């Protein structure tokens, strides 16, 4: 369980913006929290998986992928902003994220 600080919020946002800018070959200034990951960026589940792995390593998270999958079924993510919020919840609650609801 990590305390979500302004520094972590900033880091997560930066990582996600830079990730999509590079992966989707989109100028970073064209990405906002309202950008739709599928329709605007042509994103896919492999990108989602890769981002999870990035954050697992970066913050040494103890979380199983299937726990995230179960959470995502109930709380589907469509926009970059929603994805940032989900990643912050994952960092904060790790494997307890399902109990957070």
């Amino acid at each position: 369980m990590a305390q979500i600080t302004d520094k972590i919020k900033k880091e997560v946002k930066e990582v996600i913006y830079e990730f999509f800018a590079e992966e989707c070959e989109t100028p970073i200034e064209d990405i906002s929290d309202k950008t739709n990951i599928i329709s605007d960026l042509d994103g896919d589940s492999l990108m989602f998986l890769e981002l999870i792995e990035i954050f697992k390593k970066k913050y040494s998270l103890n979380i199983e992928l299937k726990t995230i999958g179960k959470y995502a079924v109930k709380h589907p993510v469509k926009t970059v902003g929603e994805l940032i919020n989900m990643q912050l919840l994952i960092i904060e609650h790790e494997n307890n994220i399902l109990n957070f609801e």
Partner: protein
Amino acid sequence: MIQKQAFLFPAFITDYTQKELELLSGNGIDFNVYLKTASDKLGIVLPKFSYTEEDFRNDELLAQIIAYLFSCAFSDLLKKKNIKPSFGAGYSMGIYANLYAAESISLEEGIHIIYNAFKLVNELACSGKYGMGGIIGLNVDDINEIIKKSNSNIEIINSNSEFSHVVAGTKNDVNTVLRLATIEGALNAVELNVKTPYHSRFLTVFDDRFTSFVNTIVLKAPKFPIVSTFDQRLITTSDELKKELVFNLTSKINWYKTMQVLLKNRVNEFYECGAGKDLSKIARFIDGDFKFSSIYKI
């Protein structure tokens, strides 16, 4: 420092970069010549190629043909640039383009093999009873547990990485397992646009017939070793290639292990010989010190 290079050949094209034709024509390679060769060999007029042409996505034979043609054109481009691989590996039906790149067969012979393999297994596709699915986010044990509990008539036929797998079998059971996989926490579980349960036990009935066909064709020894996706052995002879063609159609494959064997053989630079970027995307989840070099930046 680059130690060894490998060419990888995709099976189908999920998404084009939409820069493929420009890349080829910019390097003096006319893709229409490849299309015409295929048309002549098949004895049908192929639809004019466009990135959005539905026939090249929805028609299983044409989807294989177009993937093969692009892969052959890309390997010709690499050859033109004097890039020679130490190894090759073909993802599923990507094996045919691998044989072309390794100079075991001609472009026409590849079309001939693809057509005959397709014709042979097409009775399964025509029944509409079979399908395939992709599951991301669960491991092999998780998926096998779902298959066992639901008593489903399907199996994992390929692993791309620890958390990315392909299943094949009866269509209803594929859909049941995909639905249960989502409930169990798969990040994505989708039916693939394929009506043939490639690499599954349902294809073993074609072993003998496909072996008989393969024995009618002439394969030259490959110019570079090809890693088997069936058992990851290094193939260097035409006899072994023939065996591999049969394994590749009718048995389970394992792309994850294939990539690991390439890495163990000190490959640290890969080229994806084909349209789209599917294989480089999959490779992001394979540990190792390697890079995918973009054909677009040669």
